[in-house]
């Protein structure tokens, strides 16, 4: 997968946001702490399975649940052009 480098993960005023630094999309996308972790994992070149593993290590969640949520988040990112398959 290829993360859209125009979107930068930022921590602003205690909120995780994805910002399009080209300014084409002028809004911001708010991310939960877990979504921010998954985005960071994808940005670091990790796979969906590896990202789910990171969530399991960090939070009290089963691998199956983490994998399902990570897959759903990945699908949304692809749908919105933030990740290329």
């Amino acid at each position: 997968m290829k993360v859209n480098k125009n979107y930068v993960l930022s921590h602003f005023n205690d909120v995780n946001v994805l910002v399009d630094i080209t300014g084409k999309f002028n809004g911001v996308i708010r991310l939960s702490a877990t979504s921010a972790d998954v985005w960071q994992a994808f940005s670091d070149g990790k796979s969906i399975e590896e990202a789910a593993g990171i969530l399991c290590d960090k939070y009290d969640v089963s691998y199956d649940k983490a994998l399902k949520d990570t897959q759903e988040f990945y699908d949304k990112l692809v749908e919105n052009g933030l990740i290329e398959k």
Partner: protein
Amino acid sequence: MKNCFYISLAGLTVQMNAKHPFSKDFCKDYLVPAQTADITATADDNQIAADMTSLNADAGYAESISLYRSIAEKLPDFSRFVIHGASVTFDNKGIVFIAPSGTGKSTHIKLWRKVFKSRVDIINGDKPIIDLSGQTPKIWSSPYAGKENWQKNVCAPLYAVVLLRRAKSDRINKEQPSKYLSEVISQIYKPKQSGGFAKTVAAADKMFKTVPFYILECTPTDNAVKVAHDGLFPTQEENK
């Protein structure tokens, strides 16, 4: 370079590698003798060509904009960033009113000047610089001041950031910037170079740790200024 010159901007020395004489004249209030520079600004020929078309600007003006972009890219390395806002001082306290173009920022600061006269000084009408490099957040002017070209080469401690919105009546409220992230971030210059935006966000985050944020819903009237003043300076009502 033939028209290379130096300016002092936001407490930094900038070497301006210009080709057109317009850029030097545009920055005339900020010129300093040649010296070691903190930032070297170079215009991008492709950007100049694009701006000449999109803004219907001549080459000199387009170059000056490109030079400012070059500076804005590097300011986060010095804990500073460009903000799109109209800024004034009231009794030497800096206030920046941010909003998308056409909301009425210039109209509003003009009214501050009309209502409070010499207690108000205009810092910059369009693109001032926020400076988080010291203990106290500061706001500096720049030569880039919008169509009215309201600017004065000064600096003030930053007292408040105010998001301006047009409304049918006047109201000001202190708010958490996190509730208005899209609107706030869209008015901050976003560097394209690697890591530049992260540094900008770090600086903006630091700014909101100490500088209060307000939403001002307002009409283009003197009353809007009075309401804004009373909200921003609640203990100074007797000075009205």
